C-alpha cells in the first residue's frame, strides 16, 4: 500500500519529487520529517488526494491505510489518518560523527551509517546518559544497558563480534520500526527468506544471513517491538528449525535447506539444473537427465541444493534416503544417493531416464567394491550396463543392494576369513612345531628301529630253527 501511495503521489505531481536525491538522504529525511512530508516537499497536492496520500504514506504499518480504507474513502467516507506522535526531542544535543542530534531515530540511522564509530558512544555510556537525562526515556536507557551486559555472553567471547551484536541490538531498541541492521546487512524478519534467496542467487556471501539465524538477531528484533504480533510465535518455531538446519553439516540441511524452507516457490538453485527453473520435485529428475551433457559426471547428481530441495519439498518420500546418503562409508553413501533418485523416479516418474542412469552407473564403483566376492563384482560389472540401458533407477538400486546377495556375500566372506585363519594356524603349528616334531621323530624312529630289530630276530630264529630241523 505504501508503494501504491508513492505511485499515486508521483502521478499526481507528474514527476518523481525525489529524483536525483541519494538513498541515504531520502531515508534520513523520512526519519526526520516522515514519508509524506519528505515526498510531497514543496509540491502543491490536489486537496482531494491529501487525505488518501497521508493514509497510504503513514510510516507506522499498523496505522497505514489498507484496501478497505481506500474503498471507504472512494465511497465518500472521510477517514483522517492518525498523526504520528512527535518524537521526544532533547534540549541538549548529542554530537556524533560531526553532527548534532536531538532525537533518537535520526541518531540511530547515523549510527548505522557510521557502524564502527557507534560502539564508542554506546560503551562509554554517553548514549545511555543522553537518553536518560536528555530525553528522559528511562525504559530505552535500561534496555540499552541490558543489551550491553547480555551481548558479551551471547557473542562467544570475540570482541569484534560482541561489539557488532551490541550495536545491532541498540539500533533495534532505538528504532524498532527499522529492519534488523547488522553491519552491511539489513532485513526485516518476515523478509529474511527472500533476502536469503536473492543473496544466494547473486552468489554473494551468506555470512550475515547465517549470523542472523545463529545469533538470534531476529529474536532481539522481536523483543524490541513494543507490540506483540501473532506471527512472532511462528517466527520462533521457524527460526528454531533454521538454526538446527544450519548446525547440520550434511546434505539436505545447511543454508540451502533454509532457503527452500523459507521460500515455498523457490526453484532449485543447484548449478546442475538452475537454468531449467525446476519448481516441483517431479521436475528434478528430468532436469538432471537433461543436464548430463554439460555436467561433470564424476560428481554426484544429488548435490547439496538438490538434496535440500527434495528434503524441503518431499521430506516424507526422501528423508530416510537422504540420511543414508550422508553415511560416512562411501559405499553406503553412494547407494543412499542412488536410493534418493530411485524412490523419486519410482513414485513420481518418468519411467526411463537413460542419461541419468548412465551417469549413476558410472558412480557405482564404491557399491560394486563393497562386495567382497570378486566373482560377484565381475557379474555386477557385466550386468550393470544392461540395467543402465533400461533407464530404471529403481531396478539398478534393487540389483545393487539385493539383501540376499549382501547376506550371501557377508557369510561367504566370514567363511573365507575363518578358512584363511585356520590355514594360518595350521601353518604356524607346522612351522613352529619343529622341536616337538624332532622329539617325536626320535621317539618314533627308536620305536620303529626296535620293532624292526625284533622282527629280524624272530625271522632269524625261525629260519635257523627250520634249517636245523630240516
Amino acid at each position, binding site marked *: 500500500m505504501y508503494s501504491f501511495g508513492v505511485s499515486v503521489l508521483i502521478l499526481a505531481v507528474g514527476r518523481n519529487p525525489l529524483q536525483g536525491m541519494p538513498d541515504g538522504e531520502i531515508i534520513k529525511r523520512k526519519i526526520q520529517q516522515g514519508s509524506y512530508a519528505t515526498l510531497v516537499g514543496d509540491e502543491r497536492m490536489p486537496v482531494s488526494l491529501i487525505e488518501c496520500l497521508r493514509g497510504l504514506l503513514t510510516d507506522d504499518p499498523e496505522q497505514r491505510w489498507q484496501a478497505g480504507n481506500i474503498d471507504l474513502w472512494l465511497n465518500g467516507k472521510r477517514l483522517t489518518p492518525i498523526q504520528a506522535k512527535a518524537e521526544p526531542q532533547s534540549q541538549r544535543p548529542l554530537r556524533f560523527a560531526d553532527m548534532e542530534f536531538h532525537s533518537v531515530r535520526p541518531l540511530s540511522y547515523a549510527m548505522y551509517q557510521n557502524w564502527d564509530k557507534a560502539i564508542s558512544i554506546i560503551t562509554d555510556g554517553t548514549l545511555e546518559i543522553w537518553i536518560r537525562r536528555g530525553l528522559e526515556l528511562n525504559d530505552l536507557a535500561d534496555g540499552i544497558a541490558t543489551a550491553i551486559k547480555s551481548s558479551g555472553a551471547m557473542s562467544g567471547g570475540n570482541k569484534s563480534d560482541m561489539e557488532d551484536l551490541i550495536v545491532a541490538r541498540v539500533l533495534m531498541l532505538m528504532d524498532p520500526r527499522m529492519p534488523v541492521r547488522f553491519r552491511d546487512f539489513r532485513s526485516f524478519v518476515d523478509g529474511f527468506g527472500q533476502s536469503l534467496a536473492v543473496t544466494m542467487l547473486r552468489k554473494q556471501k551468506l555470512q550475515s544471513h547465517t549470523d542472523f539465524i545463529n545469533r538470534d538477531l531476529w529474536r532481539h528484533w522481536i523483543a524490541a517491538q513494543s507490540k506483540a504480533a501473532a506471527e512472532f510465535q511462528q517466527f520462533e518455531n521457524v527460526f528454531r528449525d533454521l538454526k538446527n538446519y544450519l548446525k547440520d553439516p550434511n546434505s539436505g540441511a545447511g543454508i540451502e535447506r533454509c532457503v527452500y524452507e523459507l521460500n515455498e516457490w523457490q526453484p532449485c538453485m543447484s548449478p546442475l539444473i538452475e537454468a531449467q527453473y525446476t519448481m516441483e520435485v517431479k521436475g528434478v529428475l528430468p532436469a538432471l537427465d537433461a543436464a548430463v551433457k554439460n555436467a561433470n559426471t564424476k560428481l554426484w547428481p544429488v548435490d547439496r541444493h538438490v538434496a535440500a530441495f527434495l528434503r524441503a519439498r518431499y521430506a516424507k518420500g526422501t528423508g530416510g534416503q537422504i540420511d543414508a546418503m550422508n553415511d560416512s562409508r562411501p559405499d553406503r553413501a553412494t547407494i543412499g544417493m542412488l536410493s534418493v533418485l530411485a524412490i523419486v523416479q519410482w513414485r513420481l516418474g518418468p519411467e526411463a531416464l537413460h542419461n541419468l542412469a548412465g551417469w549413476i552407473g558410472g558412480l557405482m564403483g564404491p557399491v560394486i567394491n563393497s562386495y567382497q566376492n570378486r566373482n560377484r563384482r565381475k557379474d555386477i560389472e557385466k550386468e550393470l550396463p544392461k540395467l543402465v540401458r533400461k533407464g530404471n533407477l529403481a531396478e539398478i538400486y534393487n540389483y545393487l543392494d539385493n539383501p540376499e546377495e549382501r547376506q550371501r556375500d557377508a557369510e561367504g566372506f566370514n567363511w573365507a576369513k575363518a578358512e584363511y585363519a585356520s590355514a594360518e594356524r595350521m601353518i604356524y603349528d*607346522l612351522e613352529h612345531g619343529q622341536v616337538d616334531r624332532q622329539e617325536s621323530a626320535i621317539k618314533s624312529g627308536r620305536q620303529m628301529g626296535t620293532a624292526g630289530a625284533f622282527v629280524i630276530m624272530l625271522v632269524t630264529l625261525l629260519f635257523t630253527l627250520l634249517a636245523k630241523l630240516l
Partner: protein
Amino acid sequence: MNKSRFFLYTLIAIPIALMIIPTVIVLAVALIPTGVAFLVERSKGYYGGLTVGCMNLAGASPYLFDLWFKGHTVDAAVGIITNVFAWMMFYGAAMFGWAIYSTTPSLVSTFMTMTSGRRITALRAQQRELVQKWGPDVESVYEPEGGKPQADPTSMASMAG
C-alpha cells in the same frame, strides 16, 4: 622290586641256570654288547638296549641252536666262545642293531619334515585362492595365546617355497 621277590626269583633262576650252564656260558659272552647298550642307554624306554639285544640274539642264534642240537655240553659252549667267527657274529650283529638304533630317528625326522613342507605349500596355495576370490581383507595373522610367535628361519624358508 622288593627284596623278598628278588630272593624268590634268585631261588628259581639258580637251579635253572645250573641245568643250562652251557647255554648260560654262551649267552654270557654273546650278550655283552646288549648289557653295555642297556647301561649306556639314558633315555626312557630302553630302545637302544632292546634293539641291540634283538640283533645280538639273532646273531647268536645259529650257535645256540648248534649247542642245543649237537650236544649241550660245557665243552661245546667253550668251543663256541673260543671261536673267533662266533665272536664276529655276536658283535657284528650287535653293531648292526646299534646302527639301526642310531639311524632310524633321523630317517623318520626327514620323512616327517618333507610331509609337513608339502602340507604348508598346500595351505599357502589354499590361502592364495581365498585372497584371489575374496580380496586381501580375508588375510589375518595368527598369534598364539601368550604373545606373538617368534621369528623362525624355517618358517621363512617354507614361505619362500
